[in-house]
């Protein structure tokens, strides 16, 4: 169980890592899929609506066409029957009626047999004809099956024709009813008039309602739609389900559906979401009703939608795979570059492997160039650090050179011999402080306060040695004292001022002034060591300044060059040392440093 959980957890992590939304790869895939899917979905939705409308229109026009066809077929059939009924005024028919009404059975023998033969021949013209008969106003009917008696009051066809005038010569139709054999028929008839336009009876044809099934039965409006016929009393006279024949249409479609059917091709919605189209078959005043199921429309639409969905889903799948592939193509070099960068963070000697010539390839190349530059700068930095150590060491060596120590010790001995014990103590303290600052526990940066104290100790010792030959003055701004500087920058300059400046004076009165202040921009610290000594040849001064501006010339003018070199290595070439002539004689050495807190 635990193992299973760990497997799931692993899979989840892999999935999460694979589809990190913040990753370029996921963004690319999502954008690609979204950009290609959204238009497709919009197009599919739009097409769905348009197709739905077209399909519905097609169904309506197809239903109308089918209803028209049924109407035409019924009309054609009726016109055939009408032609047959034109035989009603045949001599034998009239004689039979007259003799029958007269009650002459024997005299009617000839006509009876003749009519049986004729009527049976007529019936055989069409397979749907059940009976062809002549009915007299006496209620005697002669037809294909013999002679019967008819209750005229129950015969709607007869009643219709009897109530017409002799001028009305059109056919009459009696909707589905049982014939005398009990089978369902509908009857078509025409009146027979005597010599004085007197109504004698009628000739009628009983048609098997199967005819309606033959005309309408095979028609299917879609899969479940169908045609039905309704008589003038709103009774169903044909329906594919025989059980419904004879029932009222209102019960099937709802009473409200019976209204507004006066015009042909009225379209209504019926129960069960049925689309109803209606046309009146004028000769019989029947309604031809086409019912199609709107659900089928939905079924059709479902097919289309299913196809569209299949295409969309397949396309999304394919596009996703393509997006993954393209994302892989695009992001893999980036990942390789990222990998290279990661390696480079640990080992600068690696290079990104360039596979492509595109932007990523250019990026890789630039990265490689950057790496090369970093390596170069690193080497340079290492060299500079090394150089810094070296110059610092040499500066230190300069400060602890043996004759300075011997001279100072001789000075102390001299002071002891003259019992200037206090001076001895001060000198030894100054010397100790001098060397303590020089070493500074190996620290490279010290406070300006320490640097100033360091040069002050040095000047104290030198002043003891040299007596009143010169004097010194230290003026450093208080705010400057806590800022930092590299060590041992003032002492070599002061040493030069003593040995090449004020000591060379013929008379006493030499002065060394050390000034420390912020320059105007407040970002630069400036020290000036000003002596009023013998001065310097301008050409030499220029030579020294040139040496200071150019690196690698520290072998000459060692002390000042060492200071200048260390400043530039530590803070950059814009800082350093510069010599100038002190107005009135002497040399002014200006040291510029950045403000280091």
């Amino acid at each position, binding site marked *: 169980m635990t193992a299973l959980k760990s497997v799931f957890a692993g899979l989840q992590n892999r999935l999460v890592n694979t589809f990190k939304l913040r990753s370029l790869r996921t963004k690319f895939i999502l954008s690609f899929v979204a950009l290609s899917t959204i238009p497709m979905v919009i197009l599919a939705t739009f097409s769905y609506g348009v197709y739905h409308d077209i399909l519905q229109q097609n169904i309506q026009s197809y239903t109308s066409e089918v209803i028209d066809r049924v109407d035409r077929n019924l009309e054609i059939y009726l016109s055939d029957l009408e032609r047959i009924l034109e035989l009603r005024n045949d001599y034998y028919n009239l004689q039979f009626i007259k003799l029958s009404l007269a009650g002459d059975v024997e005299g009617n023998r000839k006509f009876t047999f003749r009519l049986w033969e004729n009527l049976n021949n007529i019936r055989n013209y069409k397979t749907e004809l059940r009976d062809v008969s002549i009915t007299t106003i006496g209620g005697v009917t002669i037809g294909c099956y*013999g002679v019967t*008696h008819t*209750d005229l009051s129950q015969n709607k066809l007869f009643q219709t024709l009897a109530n017409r005038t002799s001028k009305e010569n059109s056919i009459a139709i009696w909707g589905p009813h*049982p014939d005398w054999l*009990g089978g369902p028929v509908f009857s078509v008839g025409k009146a027979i008039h005597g010599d004085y336009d007197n109504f004698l009876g009628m000739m009628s044809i009983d048609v098997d309602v199967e005819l309606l099934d033959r005309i309408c039965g095979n028609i299917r409006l879609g899969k479940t739609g169908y045609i039905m016929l309704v008589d003038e009393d709103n009774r169903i006279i044909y329906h594919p389900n025989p059980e419904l024949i004879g029932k009222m249409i209102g019960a099937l479609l709802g009473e409200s559906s019976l209204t507004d059917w006066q015009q042909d091709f009225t379209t209504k919605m019926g129960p069960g979401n049925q689309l109803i189209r209606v046309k009146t078959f004028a000769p019989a005043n029947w309604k031809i009703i086409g019912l199609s199921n709107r659900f089928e429309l939905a079924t059709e639409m479902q097919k289309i939608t299913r196809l569209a969905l299949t295409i969309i889903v397949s396309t999304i799948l394919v596009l996703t795979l393509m997006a993954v592939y393209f994302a892989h193509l695009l992001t893999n070099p980036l990942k390789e570059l990222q990998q290279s960068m990661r390696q480079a963070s640990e080992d600068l000697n690696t290079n990104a492997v360039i596979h492509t010539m595109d932007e990523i390839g250019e990026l890789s190349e630039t990265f490689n160039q950057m790496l090369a530059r970093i390596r170069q700068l690193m080497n340079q930095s290492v060299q500079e650090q090394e150089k810094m150590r070296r110059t610092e060491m040499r500066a230190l060596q300069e400060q602890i050179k043996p004759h300075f120590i011997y001279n100072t010790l001789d000075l102390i001995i001299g002071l002891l011999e003259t019992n200037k014990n206090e001076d001895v103590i001060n000198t030894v303290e100054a010397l100790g402080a001098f060397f303590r600052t020089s070493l500074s526990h190996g620290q490279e940066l010290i406070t300006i306060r320490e640097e100033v104290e360091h040069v002050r100790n040095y000047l104290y010792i030198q002043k003891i040695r040299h007596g009143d030959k010169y004097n010194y003055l230290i003026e450093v701004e208080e705010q400057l004292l806590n800022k930092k500087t590299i060590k041992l920058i003032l002492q070599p300059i002061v040493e030069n001022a003593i040995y090449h400046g004020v000591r060379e004076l013929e008379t006493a009165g030499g002065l060394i002034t050390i000034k420390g202040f912020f320059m105007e921009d407040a970002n630069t610290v400036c020290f000036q060591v000003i002596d009023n000594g013998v001065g310097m040849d301008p050409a030499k001064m220029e030579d020294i300044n040139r040496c200071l501006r150019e690196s690698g010339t520290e072998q000459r003018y060692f002390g000042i060059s060492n200071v200048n070199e260390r400043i530039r290595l530590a803070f950059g070439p814009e800082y350093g040392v510069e010599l100038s002539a002190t107005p009135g004689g002497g040399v002014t050495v200006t040291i510029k440093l950045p403000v280091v807190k």
Partner: protein
Amino acid sequence: MKGVRIFCLSFLLLCLVLSLSMRSPALSPDYVVAVAENTPVSGSFYPKNRPITIAIVPKSLDNPVFVDSMETSMQTAKELGVNLEWVGPFKVDPDLQVKIIEGLIWRKVDGIAISTSDPEKIRKVIDKAVAAGIKVATIDADCPGSKRLFYCGTDNYKAGWACGEAMVKIVTERGLAHKRLRTAILTGGIEAHNLNERIRGFQEAVAGKLDLEYVALLACDDDTTTGAKMVEAYIKEHPETDLFFFAGGWAFFGPTESMPLYQEWCNNGGIAVSMDTFYSVLQAAKKGFAQALVGQDFRKMGVLTVKYLVDAIQGKPVPMEYIDTGLELADESNFDQLLSEKKPWEMK
């Protein structure tokens, strides 16, 4: 993690929306059947206080032998104040006859008289009619084994027997009684009980008296034209035939000019005995197409059938189950007399 969830949820939602949009509602059944009670399409064929209605169902309408019965039955019905319907298939068709009788049962007529074309098929529908309370009789052709009330018509066995006796007499007179004679028979329908009874009567009457070899049994389905054609064709193929027994006179109902070969056969000594003594049959016999005839009384059949059916409907007793309407014998001796008494049908 959140991004993955959003992506998956969006995709699932899209699929769900699309699938829901495509969900088709279940198709409704073809027809909505929840409708109001069916209203009867038609009422009874007859008003409640209608007169008694009797239907006579002949084997076929086109058989002229029933003309006399039809006319007398109609006149009798008129006299008795009842309606009489004469209904049947135009040509012999037992199945249609059954259907017609069923129609009469549906219409609830008061009485039915049937000339049975196929007892096996008609028996059931007769019993059905009886069960429906209709008085049922048979006329001309009985339906033995049925629940019919009575039979009114010729005793067909006796009629056949009379034909057989007439044949024995003629053959004996011609001195051919000792000879084996090839005999052909024309009947109407193979299954017709009345015709089969005639054939049985004929065969039993001649048995032991004549040596007959029955070489053919021709069935014309009670059709006059077919009967004449079949006889003519048979004689053409088998002129050696010695005797012909006609179980009905169909072949002679029409003009005899259509049977020259048969006429020649008769002239060459062919002997024929036929049922029926209608005017046209008598005419043919007088021309030599038959030497003896045995007739039925169709007029009497019509009268008695209606009378006894009405009696039965009115609850009166019927005198007997088998009402024999008698026979009429004819030979050369009375052809002219009978011709003078009868009238041609004149149906065309």
